[in-house]
């Protein structure tokens, strides 16, 4: 079946919905999403959304926010994009409030704000209250409000449609092919513009805070269309995932005063970040936790430490962190008002993604050549505002702010874009992938291959990396790719075939982990979340640049993109 719309947005999290609200004002807009919109993973964000509103600390301003974000990115973030983000943040948050987002409030009835990792006053002097929040349901309430506004504005949703294939011809995007999960069958969406807002790739790792849906489909679709992905080697580990589950415990828990303790009951962050302690940026805190574990100071010698919030008292926890209490009770049988929470770092956020301009226009090379009709925003994109390490509460802001900005850009240029004829073979190519999976009668199972991938990625491409482990991982990926050719799915039916869609997702992951691991292998330095124990220094001479990776018949090809530096020259990064 073929559909025609002016604009097709893939993904219904914060970036996709915020963009849809803009674009649907002026153009026929469809949103394709593999889960019903409110089930998108933006809703799992708990602690806050960053903006220098100054409601609690009046001296806060966008310049402090910018400095923190640049320093947090280990100077890999593009400062023109970061400046746009932090300057528009207060306006973006107030817009959300006007749309109905229920924020917690200060005594004066303004939007409440709390401290978050790496956010400071006066360039690192002390932690600042910058994360706007709604108890610990911030992402959830923003997601639901944007969905509600989409209903109000009659946004057209194709819910439970899984995008599989991007139509790009001669540097022009002409549409996308998606699988109808409920009824089965491929649909071709012919459009003037396509926008990816398809989220992150945390599911490539065994211990992750991400949803089952976060399989980075958009990245491999872009790669398969001959376009590059950027900075894939930068994967954020959130410091506090529930032990063995990886489920998120918000940074807000530390923002409200939670302590990290090792087996000796010591607040070990004193050793690693004397000024900010537990509120240092995530890359640093995760490495510190992993170091404590590796050196035998995990609880009972196991691979976890404690996050203790019990001293905050039941009343404060119930008011400010109710979800944390609920999650710890149900998943690890811990009452966090009385006992410490067992936590370990968990794969959380994809700094890398589809390279774009500050207006969300996808680019195809280091010179910034734009792909006509193709846009991206949110976690799947790499603008890059997060560089080598994202600060907490900057991702919801990124999704909302660049979602809106990209939506406005599409609205502005839609009259100049046309519905162009496309070659007849796209649907056939997409169908061949489905037919292969449906008919293949090999001996490999999706669940088995996926688990081998996820486990080996944590071991060999995790918090601490070196050449030996990364080389080994590359080999493992090649073998898994080969074994995938011998796949067999059990379910051969059309209706809601999750066996098939999981196989498609696994193939996406097997495609994009290769440039991720190769990127990590060739970047011989330590920067932000990318930590090479065999190259323990940051190397600004050779590596102050973005990686672009292309999938070619001969293997992965690399190109580079300069980092935009405006206000802050790279300095040593200490907290």
């Amino acid at each position, binding site marked *: 079946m073929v559909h025609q719309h002016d604009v097709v947005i893939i993904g219904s999290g914060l970036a996709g919905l915020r963009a849809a609200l803009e674009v649907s004002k002026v153009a026929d807009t469809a949103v394709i999403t593999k*889960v*019903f919109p*409110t*089930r*998108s*993973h933006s*809703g*799992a964000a708990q602690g806050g959304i960053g903006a220098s*509103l100054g409601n609690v600390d009046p001296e806060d301003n966008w310049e402090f926010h910018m400095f923190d974000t640049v320093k947090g990115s280990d100077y890999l973030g593009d400062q023109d994009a970061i400046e746009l983000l932090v300057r528009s943040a207060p306006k973006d*948050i*107030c817009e959300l*409030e*006007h*749309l*109905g987002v*229920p*924020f*917690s*409030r200060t*005594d*004066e*009835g*303004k939007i409440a704000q709390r401290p978050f990792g790496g956010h400071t006053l006066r360039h690192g002097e002390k932690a600042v209250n910058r994360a706007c929040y*709604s108890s610990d*349901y911030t992402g*959830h*309430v923003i997601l*639901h*409000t944007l969905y*509600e506004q989409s*209903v*109000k504005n009659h946004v057209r949703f194709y819910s439970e449609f899984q995008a599989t294939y991007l139509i790009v011809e001669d540097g022009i995007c002409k549409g996308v092919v998606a699988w109808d999960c409920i009824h089965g069958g491929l649909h071709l969406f012919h459009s003037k513009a396509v926008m990816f807002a398809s989220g992150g790739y945390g599911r490539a790792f065994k211990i992750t805070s991400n*949803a*089952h*849906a976060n399989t980075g489909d958009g990245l491999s679709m872009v790669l398969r269309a001959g376009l590059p992905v950027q900075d894939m080697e930068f994967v954020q580990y959130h410091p506090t995932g529930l032990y*063995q*589950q990886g*489920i*998120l415990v918000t940074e807000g828990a530390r923002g409200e005063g939670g302590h990290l303790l090792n087996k000796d009951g010591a607040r070990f962050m004193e050793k690693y970040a004397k000024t900010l302690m537990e509120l240092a940026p995530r890359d640093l805190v995760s490495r510190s936790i992993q170091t404590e574990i590796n050196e035998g100071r995990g609880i009972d010698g196991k691979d976890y430490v404690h996050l203790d919030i019990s001293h905050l008292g039941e009343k404060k926890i119930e008011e400010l962190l109710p*979800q944390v209490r*609920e*999650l710890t009770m*149900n*998943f*690890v*049988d811990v009452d966090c008002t009385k006992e410490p929470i067992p936590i370990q770092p968990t794969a959380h956020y994809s700094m890398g993604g589809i390279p774009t301009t500050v207006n969300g226009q996808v680019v195809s090379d280091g010179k910034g050549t734009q792909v006509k009709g193709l846009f991206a925003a949110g976690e799947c994109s790499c603008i890059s505002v997060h560089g080598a390490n994202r600060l907490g509460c900057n991702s919801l802001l990124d999704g909302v702010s660049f979602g809106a900005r990209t939506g406005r850009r599409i609205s502005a240029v839609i009259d100049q874009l046309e519905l162009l004829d496309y070659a007849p073979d796209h649907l056939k190519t997409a169908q061949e992938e489905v037919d292969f999976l449906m008919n293949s009668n090999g001996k490999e*199972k*999706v*669940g*088995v291959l996926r*688990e081998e991938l996820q486990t080996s990625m944590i071991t060999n491409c995790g918090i601490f990396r070196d050449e030996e482990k990364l080389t080994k991982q590359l080999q493992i990926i090649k073998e898994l790719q080969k074994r995938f050719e011998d796949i067999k*799915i*059990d*379910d051969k*039916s*059309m*209706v*809601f075939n*999750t*066996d098939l869609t999981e196989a498609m997702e696994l193939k996406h992951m097997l495609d994009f982990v290769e440039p991720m691991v190769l990127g990590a292998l060739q970047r011989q330095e330590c920067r932000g979340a990318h930590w090479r124990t065999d190259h323990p220094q940051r190397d600004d001479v050779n590596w102050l640049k973005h990686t672009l990776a292309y999938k070619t018949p001969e293997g992965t090809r690399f190109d580079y993109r300069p980092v935009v530096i405006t206000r802050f020259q790279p300095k040593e990064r200490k907290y």
Partner: protein
Amino acid sequence: MQVTFSIYRFNPATDQKPRYQDYVVEYERGWTVLDGLNEIKWKQDGTLSYRRSCRSAICGSCAMKINGFNYLACFIQIEHLKAKKLVIEPIPGFEIIKDLIVDMEPLYEKLESIVPFQVNDNPPPDRERIQSQEDFKKIEVSIGCILCGICSSSCPSFWADPRYVGPASLLKAYRFMADTRDEGDFERIPIIDNKHGLWRCHTIFNCKDACPKDLNPTAGIAELKKMVMYSKY
């Protein structure tokens, strides 16, 4: 540890009628019912079909009936159910698409019918609208809803009256009507003030007992009944 999952199976392409299929699962401490279902799907039988995503009780995808009660599969540990056998069925009150997957469209359509968004046509101020902490608390009790459908699926009035908007939608109506920033009461009241709206609720608290997020739609409905009465007299 070992447990038997007895799972409702129905594939419209191949099955004339539904059946129950048993799977034995070796599980570890801390496993949720969803972990058990994943173990079956990934290791034993790829045809088993169910929705899931966040696996941390926030996306609302994995509502199902487990030993007679509606739960989120991701949010209940196998061990906590204290049973050797888990009978897993789709949530009641909805058409079954396949296995544990139901057609949620009626839930969404009913939600859309009650004007589920903030109505406020006044030009916004430069900064945020001011709302007191007390006024925020009035809506805080309802904003945690994840639209999993468990409340509506647990409600006999919802089963009996296909036109009843149900507790999930009414809680959403309450969320806005209790919000000091919203001015949509005159639009919503005619929609909910009838026998397929508010007055279909007979206050049996099934929705409250079943809600995995510990919300209380019954109380929200009671507040709405008061608001509607006050609007008339």
